[in-house]
């Protein structure tokens, strides 16, 4: 299993999802101390809180591999949805590391349940060290 499989698993764990929620979901997953380091993205504080620029590159890679598809909508950013091939690939990867599946699902549920502002506020409250460069500050 690789970091990209984690990303794929997060996208596959629900309906089409925007890159903000993907970024925050992967961040929450990476904060779990029981997750092996090789599956974690490195995050830095950036303009909307914790950000890993590698996530963008890997999303593009997953799209190019036909595992997820990019859906353009009315808003500035696209959403990402898993393809049939991607769902199969995610299942195979998670079969190898079954104990990680609930963690990915929990992270996805957390980000799906919140509006953008609530999501950022909750993450900033929990991880203030990643909020230092945010442009969204009270």
């Amino acid at each position: 299993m690789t970091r990209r499989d984690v990303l794929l698993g997060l996208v596959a764990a629900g309906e089409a999802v925007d890159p903000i929620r993907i970024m925050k979901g992967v961040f929450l997953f990476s904060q779990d101390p029981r997750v092996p380091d090789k599956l974690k993205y490195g995050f830095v504080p950036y303009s909307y809180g914790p950000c890993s620029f590698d996530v963008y590159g890997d999303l593009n890679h997953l799209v190019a591999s036909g595992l997820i598809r990019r859906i353009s909508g009315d808003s500035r950013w696209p959403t990402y949805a898993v393809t049939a091939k991607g769902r199969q690939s995610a299942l195979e990867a998670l079969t190898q590391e079954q104990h990680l599946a609930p963690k990915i699902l929990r992270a996805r549920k957390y980000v799906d349940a919140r509006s953008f502002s609530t999501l950022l506020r909750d993450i900033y409250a929990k991880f203030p060290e990643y909020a230092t460069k945010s442009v969204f500050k009270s």
Partner: protein
Amino acid sequence: MTLIASMVFSGGVLIAADSKGTESSTGDLLQDRAYPMEKLYPIGGFLVWGSSGAEGVAQRTAAAFANDVGTYPGNYQRLVAEIEEHCRTIVKGVIQKELAALTIPLHLAMQLRTPPVGQGFLFAGICGGTPWLTEILWDGQMSSYGAGRGFHAIGSGGLAALTTYSLLEHHGMNKGPIEGARCMLYRIVDACIRSNAAGLGYPVRMWEIVPGGSRQIPEDELTAISDTVGLWESEERECLKAVAVPAQINAAAALAETVDPQTL
């Protein structure tokens, strides 16, 4: 068709551009002859510039600067006014050569706007901790914007960028740290590209010049900035919803308008 926009913030200066090159020698179908190109050029570690007008003139200007900074790097480590004047001298040299190479009279070139007529240059730099931002035009006119407005834009998208800047200025993101300034400048250039798709094109390119030196912001980082701008727009929509008149009040007002006061 070009947009070069630059903005001073509390810790330095940013300069951004669209990336659409157009080929005019093959006819007027600019849309069909468009190609992506880099429009920003660094000089040394503390100065970046961009040009609107003919790409060839920009290329020869870039070569002149590259040659000059390689030979006399000290020319770019002086006071702001001296660096500005030096840049004007280099630009002037290139423009004079271009004018001398014209095969038509100058008055006709001006009428037809044949390059280098109309060529514009925007320089953004930092000197002794002071950010500066200066426009130099093909006819030698030079204007400094760093200490005043702190924003300027040139090219076919310049006016749209100045308008967009005015619309966003109240957010004050150019008065604070670099994170907000990046988002504001990105939003300006992005809005101009989206509203004027025939003349400007993606991707947005951006450089930041701070006391530690200049750096081109990599593509993945620009994606994160774009996402932040998306969040900013989303929060604006939510903010308007929060202050909107509740539906029941609207309904009561509509009902009141249908009642004749005489019957009360």
